[in-house]
């Protein structure tokens, strides 16, 4: 199959998996998504939760991928948006609103506004400092929510749930959120927005000189990222039935989407999904196999991923020279 790609970015394609990444990989992902539609038909509540979580992490990974992968602003606090989205749903539920769509829409609007507001000062920071600032934001928001009685403080909020017969609605909703995030990433990547993001990542000052309004695009990237992540949170809240600061602002939830995106292929349209499937799947298998010490193996896994696949699987797929070139990359980062 021959694919037309913008020529100036061919080099980018080899080094980063291209703007959208390997199109075959993306096609596989779409097929996998279609297959996932059949999960609720098995009437196995546990499996439904497992796959729903994969979809949730995929959406969060896509969110991170947009700001961290495409725009190059590595955020360590994206879980904040997840939490804000979840609490939007929680507050609505406490006021009698049971509508999933309402949860998602409100979560997206609130998160976009929140990201834009916070992004104005914070996106002026570069590199490490941006990362640390976002980490700080996440922790600060979690702490504030824990102290706010109006949001249930540490006791959290209990949400009304659909009954057992209709419970799969949460699965389908999460599927839609993941699909939305996926497609949005794909189309944004091919659009002017996507090129602007990548330009900012590659050399922000040069991009500014070329007339790309960096500040505006950064904020847009973060706002979209926030919307994806927040939507996932808004569906998670009623699906779980209960939210509190420790669940919705968990530090681990920062790391998983990042690890997944790296594993799958950073800055690609297929990577986050692939990473989500593999990592969440591996976690389940480990939980079964090593009831007492699976965190130990999970930690080892993360270390191995970082050492062996720092650019992700999708990129590895596209390598010319296959395994040999891959082996060479293992020493690329040595001091």
């Amino acid at each position, binding site marked *: 199959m021959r694919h037309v790609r913008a020529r100036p970015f061919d080099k980018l394609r080899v080094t980063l998996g291209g703007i959208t990444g390997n199109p075959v990989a993306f096609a596989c992902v779409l097929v996998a998504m279609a297959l996932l539609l059949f999960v609720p038909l098995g009437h196995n509540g546990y499996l439904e939760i497992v796959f729903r979580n994969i979809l949730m992490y995929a959406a969060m990974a896509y969110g991170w991928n947009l700001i961290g992968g495409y725009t190059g602003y590595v955020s360590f606090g994206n879980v904040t948006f997840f939490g804000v989205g979840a609490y939007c749903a929680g507050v609505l539920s406490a006021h009698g609103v049971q509508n999933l769509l309402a949860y998602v829409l409100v979560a997206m609007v609130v998160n976009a506004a929140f990201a834009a507001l916070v992004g104005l000062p914070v996106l002026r920071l570069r590199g490490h400092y941006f*990362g640390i600032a976002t980490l*700080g934001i996440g922790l600060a928001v979690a702490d504030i929510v824990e102290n706010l009685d109006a949001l249930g403080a540490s006791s959290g909020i209990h949400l009304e749930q659909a009954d057992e017969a209709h419970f799969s609605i949460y699965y389908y909703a999460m599927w839609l959120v993941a699909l939305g995030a996926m497609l949005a990433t794909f189309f944004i990547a091919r659009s002017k927005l996507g090129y602007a993001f990548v330009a900012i990542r590659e050399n922000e000052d040069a991009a500014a000189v070329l007339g790309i309004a960096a500040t505006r695009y950064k904020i847009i990237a973060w706002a979209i990222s926030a919307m994806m992540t927040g939507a996932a949170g808004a569906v998670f809240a009623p699906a779980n039935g209960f939210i509190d600061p420790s669940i919705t602002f968990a530090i681990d939830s920062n790391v998983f989407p990042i690890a997944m995106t790296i594993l799958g292929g950073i800055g690609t349209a297929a990577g986050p999904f692939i990473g989500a499937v593999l990592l969440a799947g591996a976690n389940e298998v480990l939980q079964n196999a090593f009831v007492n010490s699976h965190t*130990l193996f999970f*930690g080892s896994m993360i270390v191995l991923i970082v050492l062996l696949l720092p650019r992700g699987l999708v990129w590895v797929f596209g390598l010319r020279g296959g395994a040999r070139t891959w082996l060479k990359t293992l020493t690329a980062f040595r001091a």
Partner: protein
Amino acid sequence: MQLLAQDLVNGILAGGILAVVALGFSLVWGIMNIINLAHGAFVMLGAYATYQLTKSFGLDPFLTLPLSFVILFALGYVIQRFLINRVARAPILITFLLTFGLSLLVVNVALLIWTGDTRGVTTSYSGANFTLAGVTVPWIKLDTLLAALVITGLMHVWLTRTRTGRAIRATSMDIGAAQLTGVRVRQIYAIVFGLGAGLAGVAGTLISMSYAMTPSMGDPFLIKGFVVCVLGGLGSVQGALIGGLVYGVVEAFATQINVTIGTQSISGSGLQDAIALIVLIIVLIVRPTGIVGKAVV
């Protein structure tokens, strides 16, 4: 008024420990550009090292300071040489994840060895204190602060006066130029990381005397270490000290806020983490090089 003075003293005493925690973290970050998320786990190991040494050999915890340093230095050196070095020049994201995974590993191994039981290091002088001008000062905390000052001073001297110290500073300034003058960068990196771990171990020893230990005890110290680092200025020894003291004092004063508006209580103590982090963010935006500014160690 007396309460304010007491708070000031409390804050300075608490800040001393945080300064030592931040010191190792700051050096590794400033010189090697690596944010070591396993730093909290190293602190924990230092605490447990002290626990074992005091339990098995009956040593006074202060005497275990050099031992804790040596053990953790060796561990850090080995980890850098054979693990971290593979991604030494990778983007920050990669090292971040690697050290996160490493942290999980270390904590879980500790869990297997020492179980989840909470342990403490107690001495005959554990609660002893004296009162000066109405302010009560616990002896252990004061000794901890003094140890922190000594360690910070020693580090500063070592980094500015010794050959290796100068080589380290040269490496952080310009790797290429340093290599041209014969500095073996790989060796320096291993030393610096070892140093960071050793300092974490020392911090752990000091902490073990005031704070009960469990394998997951490192987390809050890691976060506070972050804030202190940025507050004081990356890679700067004085920065870590000043940042630590400022942080400790701010936290102490914030604790006094305790008002109730309607049914909502606003507790400075309950919000202390949020306050610290907001201070962090403001410092990052307004003066990212920290209080001391961008010193090259």
